[in-house]
């Protein structure tokens, strides 16, 4: 009963990824920037699962998704810790105000 063409999922993942990129460029809030990254990772995961489904057989694709999720979790933990310290030091969440490291 399951006859959705893979390309649907791929296109969706592409769109989501692009939106993630847009958010990545557009958002000013450190935390939301991280969210943008998470969004991109999710899009990639979708692509992985779709490919895995398309080729059938052993589910290596899922394994990769699994690893991506793990890495994303780690990244979020550290990144948010960094965000906290940044806010403590700069009293601002706006990444455009965190610009001492220049020239």
């Amino acid at each position, binding site marked *: 009963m399951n006859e959705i063409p893979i390309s649907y999922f791929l296109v*969706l993942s592409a769109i989501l990824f*692009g939106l993630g990129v847009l958010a990545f460029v557009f958002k000013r809030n450190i935390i939301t920037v991280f969210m943008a990254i998470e969004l991109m990772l*999710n899009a990639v995961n979708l692509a992985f699962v779709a490919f895995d489904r398309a080729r059938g057989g052993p589910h290596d694709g*899922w394994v990769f998704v699994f690893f991506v*999720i793990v890495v994303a979790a780690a990244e979020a933990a*550290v990144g*948010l810790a960094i965000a906290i310290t940044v806010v403590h030091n700069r009293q601002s969440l706006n990444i*455009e105000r965190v610009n001492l490291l220049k020239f």
Partner: protein
Amino acid sequence: MTLPIILFFVFAAIAVIGALMMIFFREPIHSALALILVMVALAVLYLLLGAEFIAAVQIIVYAGAVMVLFVFVIMLLNAGEEERTNISKLAHYVGWPLGIFLTVELVYWMLRAPIGARATTATIAPGDPTRDLSMLLFRSYLFPFEITSILILIALIGALVLAKRDS
């Protein structure tokens, strides 16, 4: 027009709309909620793709843990509306169009991907997929798995050290 396709379109729409909301909401917490929505929708899509385990993990880890962390941090820092500054001219004038261009391009190539034509009914591996996954994870991918565990540990310590107050 069958049930799965309808479901797909519904949840794809939810995902895309959620992502857009995430971009356009000013309150970080709203963005977070929008992102959670996207993730849940994606979980459903995974179900449509027959990846039940991944769907569950997606919800448990992403929606249940990572995003909770985000929400926590937002609460902790009491992040208010983000100020739409445009100090970076580059991002303002180049970032946007390029991002859109990238999206369009990716969609184009994904449409041209040779694999795309294949329907999801292609082949379903016999047996319990979750069991196969565990076999893969603990047999062929054992080493990366252990590495990721170490990575998690390191991340844990790093987060502790970073977020700890000096006093």
